[in-house]
């Protein structure tokens, strides 16, 4: 119970700090400390009041998702520290609280609330960091499409609740078409949050329009939350009533990969490339779900979280407010920003699945999970993986291109938390014990 109370208290404390106009460092410190404490508290076995017990999913793996969401938020706090002020800290914490609630709950309404709280936080952050009209436009697009799917969620929950007579999330087996429609709507809404095909359209524009810090949050937190929920709902049989679930997941996973990688290829701007690349990455989370393989999907989700924080953190530090082209990245390794550049290289290699990165292990997990399925599926998935090399390496190359030395770069020298994540990507790619422990004990 303590954990939940603290989870509720931290945003309130941050809001109070905002009112009192405490130093920025204090609110940032509180956010980080709060998240760290929450991570410890949620990892301990804890009981809640009996009246709330039916709201929580009786699932052992929940703790992994809670930790994942909190960890992502902590990572974001670290990476975005230079950009964060009191308001941003509050919004981030609110979104995190919503996310933790969404992944832990056993109730459709709670799920809705959690996801929408995440959204509220995100809209706030995107607006807060928006300094241009393009940023506002991106926010509007995000908001409009987000609202569309919020509506879908409401409709879906209504239909499900109407048939089941309860809002408790549980396995479904009957094939009533209204139930199917409701479940499909919920399913689609979650896919939308993850930025998966065919609901990926918002992602590139939103990424490109928003400022780097907001992009970093949008690329990680909602996808982690939605991904966790989708994994845990799909594997616990909630969507079993859908007649084409397996087929649908397979199609969507492969479609997501294909669309994402096709879009990412030959993009001129880094952010748009990353947006499509992130879409392609989501495909690997969905792929193992088609054979209900929770472990593989979760490992990929974890890998995605770590890698995208590193990618966006480093890219954000490298490019400031700009959206660099490949030409802008030439020669960065020779400037003060070399550590960000190195981080970006490692993280992109991790996205690509280069050996000795976490991405490689995660891709192996993901594809091994579907190896018993039809060869068309895994062969397509593998070939798309091969195709992804084209754009990742295309963007890695400029760092090594020959260039006249220019020292007028705007990159601030130094390091931030993204380097830590790069180390984690390599470290977890080589030291297999943590992931093995995780998959054996929880997933």
């Amino acid at each position, binding site marked *: 119970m303590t954990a939940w109370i603290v989870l509720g208290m931290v945003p309130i404390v941050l809001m109070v700090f905002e009112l009192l106009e405490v130093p920025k460092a204090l609110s940032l410190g509180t956010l980080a400390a709060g998240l760290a404490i929450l991570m410890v508290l949620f990892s301990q076995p804890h009981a809640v009041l009996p009246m709330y017990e039916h709201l929580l999913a009786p699932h052992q793996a929940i703790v992994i998702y809670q930790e994942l969401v909190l960890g992502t938020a902590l990572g974001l706090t670290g990476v975005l520290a230079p950009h964060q002020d009191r308001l941003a800290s509050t919004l981030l914490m609110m979104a995190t609280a919503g996310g933790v609630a969404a992944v832990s709950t056993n109730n459709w309404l709670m799920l809705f609330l959690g996801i929408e709280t995440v959204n509220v936080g995100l809209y706030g952050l995107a607006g807060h960091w928006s300094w241009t009209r393009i940023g506002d436009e991106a926010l509007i697009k995000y908001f409009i*499409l987000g609202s569309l799917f919020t509506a*879908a969620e409401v409709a879906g929950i209504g239909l499900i609740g109407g048939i089941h007579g309860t809002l408790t999330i549980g396995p479904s087996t009957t094939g009533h078409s209204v139930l199917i429609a409701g479940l*499909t709507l919920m399913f*689609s809404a979650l896919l939308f949050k993850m930025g998966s095909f065919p609901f990926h*359209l918002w992602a590139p524009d939103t990424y490109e329009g928003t400022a780097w810090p907001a992009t970093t949050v949008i690329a990680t937190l909602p996808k982690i939350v939605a991904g966790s929920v989708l994994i845990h709902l799909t594997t616990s049989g909630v969507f079993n009533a*859908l007649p*084409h679930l397996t087929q649908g997941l397979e199609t969507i996973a492969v479609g997501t990969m294909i669309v994402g990688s096709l*879009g990412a*290829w030959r993009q001129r701007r880094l952010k748009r490339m990353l947006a*499509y690349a992130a879409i392609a990455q989501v495909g690997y989370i969905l792929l193992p779900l088609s054979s209900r393989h929770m472990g593989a999907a979760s490992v990929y989700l974890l890998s995605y979280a770590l890698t995208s924080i590193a990618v966006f953190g480093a890219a954000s530090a490298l490019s400031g407010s700009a959206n660099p082209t490949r030409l802008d990245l030439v020669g960065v390794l020779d400037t003060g920003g070399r550590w960000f550049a190195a981080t970006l290289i490692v993280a992109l290699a991790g996205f690509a699945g280069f050996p000795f990165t976490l991405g490689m292990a995660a891709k192996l997990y993901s594809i091994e999970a579907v190896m018993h399925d039809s060869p068309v599926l895994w062969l397509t998935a593998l070939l798309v993986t091969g195709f992804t090399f084209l754009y990742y390496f295309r963007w890695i190359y400029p760092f090594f291109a020959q260039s006249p030395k220019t020292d007028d770069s705007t990159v601030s020298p130094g390091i931030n938390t993204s380097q830590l994540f790069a180390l984690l990507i390599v470290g977890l790619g080589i030291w297999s014990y943590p992931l093995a422990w995780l998959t054996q004990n929880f997933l």
Partner: protein
Amino acid sequence: MLGFLILTPLIVGTLGIWVPFKKMSGVIFSISAALFAFCLQSVIYPSHQDSRWNFLTLGGYPISLHWQSVPIANWMACLTTLINLLAQVYSAGYFSHDARRGYFQSVLLAFTGAMLCTVFGDNLFTQFVGWELMGVGSYLLIGYFRGETSARYAASKAMLVTRIGDVCFLIAVALAVIHHDNTITAINLHGTAFIAWALIGAVAAKSAQGPYASWLVDAMAGPTPASALIHAATMVAAGPYLLIRYTLLLHHTPGGLVTLMILGGSTAVLAAMGAVGSQEIKKLLAFSTVSQLGMMILAIGMGSPRTAWNLLVAHAFYKALLFFVSGIASYRAQSGLLSRMAGSLHRFEFSALFMMGALGMSGLPPTGGFLAKEALYQTASHGLDTLMLDLLLSFLGGAYTAKLVKALIPVKAPPVHRTSYGMLIPSYIISGLVLINFFWHPWVSVRPIFIEQTWPSLLSIGLGATVGAFWTIPFPLLTGVLYPALWRRINQLAGWTVWVDHTLVQGTLTIVTVILWANRLVRWGGSGRAQRYALLSGIALLAIVIWNIHV
């Protein structure tokens, strides 16, 4: 010991090709002399020597270099090393002012080593190695005059044409290895017909028989001492030698001997006619070599390897002599054309050197050539067709010899250029050997020849000489039209392949285009219009719902 005999010239020669050093000539002379001395000693005091060296064991099949001294090999080696020694001395005179003499002599020495490898080789693999190395050596020798286009053409052609035979040989070797036929005896006893045919193919290319004849004629672009060595006792002579060693195999190959007869006979006739029609001294000699090699193969085809051997030995002596002399003559005349040669020899040189060779070439006494030709005549007289063929060959041989003699007849004015002793001494020595060969024959004993039975061939030689002395019309035979055509065809083929490659690249580009279109489609989705996003997402949502409801 045998191993050293073969490896020393090979190693020293190869080193000399790579690292030019000053005293090279001296070293090579002494090694050549030592080689000859050694071979002579092993001929006079025959002792069985055996030298084996594992080259490789592949998948359990042993592949070894194996040399063995048998009488015929000893004699052949003796011949080779002798001609080599003389050619080395001759080249000291021929190249007295050439800075690359050391290089030339090194190649010559290595070439001899390769020949020895084939001569002593006791399995096909060993002989093949020598055979291949001779090919390389001939490439370097023929291409010695690097500035000249003809040398480039001739060297490349020699290498490429003989490679056709080499590939046949390679397959024969591989077949022998996988059948565990690892000695000449084993192959002779139970080698397959395929090996025999492959060997015939290999010999035809290397010894310039049939369609391959023209490379040897073009090879005249090389220096004279090299020609002497190639023609007399190595490379081309290795072909008949090889067939002599594998006579038994050929005997139990159906059709093998007949093929050899047809191949050798027709080549001999055609090449001889080519010789009659040639205008250059070296070309004439080259044609005559092809013709004589054809006779050797004809003799083998008629089932008489001993006759072939006699022809080989006699030919080695007189052809080396003729090359040496023609080198002197063209050096003095500053031309290789027959019409400009008149008077380039002193009377004594003409009678003691040149006429000895000419007599040998046409098959007149007192030379070894006479006996060998008579032996061939006797062998051929078993059938009317072969008899007629032999008489025709004698006729043509007489004709081209007469043509040569006529061109070189001394005139009153003595030659102006002086010739170094380096070129003259080997000529005198070998002239003596041509004479000695009349009385003495290595390895085989010649059947007695009754002088009264020799008249038909002598008559035809005489008739031929009469005709040849006045013949001036060239025969466009064996001019090597096939090779440029083949070369063009090969290049055409290569051009086609490259074209197919370009087409494949275009095909790949088509795939890229398809991916590009898909790429554009995806970008069209991300057009930046929120209305379109909402519409497309809504349609997709609806589609999924409908798809799921309608089972």
